[in-house]
């Protein structure tokens, strides 16, 4: 049984492009042949592709489909040191095919890149500390997205899910940072509170009372009571956003 993500790929064929560089062709189950890299000049194709890619200086750049690695090698010089490069092999059987011939696989993957299996892409953030989470950018040569459409869909879904996780994390951090800026003194000041004037004092119910909250410290004239109870409408003075 062939270990392949996309069942339509029957066979890989390495041929020489017109430029002399090796190029890769797939034979599909319906007999059609399609090129994964340019049959004329795969290096120029990779340069054009890399020049079109957009990503931020801190993004995790995920490249779907390695092939013979031309596009990956052209992408590496464009990355900043803060970028992280993750490579996802579109078809594990391609890796086996290329491993059989050292000439084809020579310098295919740059040493700075991390190769991740498609099924392990979902756990990408597991190895990265929270503070180093950054947006992800999924890139691929169009031929890989067309030929390995199913695997591409899976990769896109996983990256989208990871990106959502990152965005939720970032928004949560932002919210807490904002709250910390507004209420830097004590977390006790976060619940809904009411500052009552000391005179005349209301009869105190047996609820939670504090003699000195942050407001009383800030203003001695209001050295009254900070109550965690729901305020009466006539004594309402403020409420933190819920």
């Amino acid at each position, binding site marked *: 049984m062939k270990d392949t993500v996309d069942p339509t790929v029957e066979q890989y064929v390495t041929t020489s492009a*017109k430029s002399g560089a090796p190029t890769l062709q797939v034979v599909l189950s319906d007999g*059609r*042949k*399609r*090129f*994964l*890299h*340019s*049959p*004329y*000049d795969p290096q120029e*194709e990779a340069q*054009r*592709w890399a020049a*079109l890619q957009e990503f931020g200086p801190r993004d995790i750049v995920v490249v779907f489909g390695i092939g013979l690695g031309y596009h990956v090698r052209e992408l590496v010089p464009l990355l900043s040191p803060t970028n992280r490069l993750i490579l996802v092999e579109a078809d594990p059987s391609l890796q086996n095919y290329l491993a059989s011939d050292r000439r084809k696989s020579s310098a295919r993957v740059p040493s700075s890149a991390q190769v991740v299996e498609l099924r392990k892409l979902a756990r990408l953030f597991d190895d990265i500390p929270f503070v180093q989470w950054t947006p992800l950018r999924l890139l691929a040569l*169009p*031929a890989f*997205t*067309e030929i390995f459409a199913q695997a591409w869909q899976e990769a896109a879904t996983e990256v989208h899910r990871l990106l959502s996780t990152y965005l939720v994390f970032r928004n949560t951090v932002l919210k807490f940072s904002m709250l910390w800026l507004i209420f830097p003194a004590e977390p006790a000041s976060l619940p809904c509170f009411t500052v009552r004037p000391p005179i005349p004092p209301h009869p105190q119910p047996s609820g939670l009372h504090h003699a000195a909250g942050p407001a009383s410290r800030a203003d001695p004239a209001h050295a009254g009571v900070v109550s965690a109870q729901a305020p009466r409408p006539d004594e309402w003075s403020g409420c933190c956003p819920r």
Partner: protein
Amino acid sequence: MTQDSESIEEAARQTLMRQAVSQAAEHGRELQQICPSVSGLLREGRPQPAMEQLRLLLTGLGAIAQAVHLTAPLQGDHSSNLELAELQQVLNPVVSALENRDHVLLADVLDYEVTPLLERWTSELESIAGENSEGPGPNA
């Protein structure tokens, strides 16, 4: 009388051929713009708009081929550089790439085969149009 009508017909034919050649040259220039646009769309992974533009390109190439075929008497020495078989040879891999939905091959053939052919043919057609605009054609 018959000779007069024949010469009038011949002159009209020559005029039509000159017009066809200059229009084909103009069309060739336009197609030279479409060619990289189609290959660019294919390389960006946008086959849908690429196929719409490719239809225009292939129709245009057909029109140029027809103009080259019909204006053979006007071409003189240039006819050796305007071989329809050469166009056929270039279009065969285009057809093959379309059948296999091989967009990588299609983009490459457009960039490395069709565009240079269009450039050569367009300049040849412009030369023919230039030579024939000043006087009657070489075979007139």
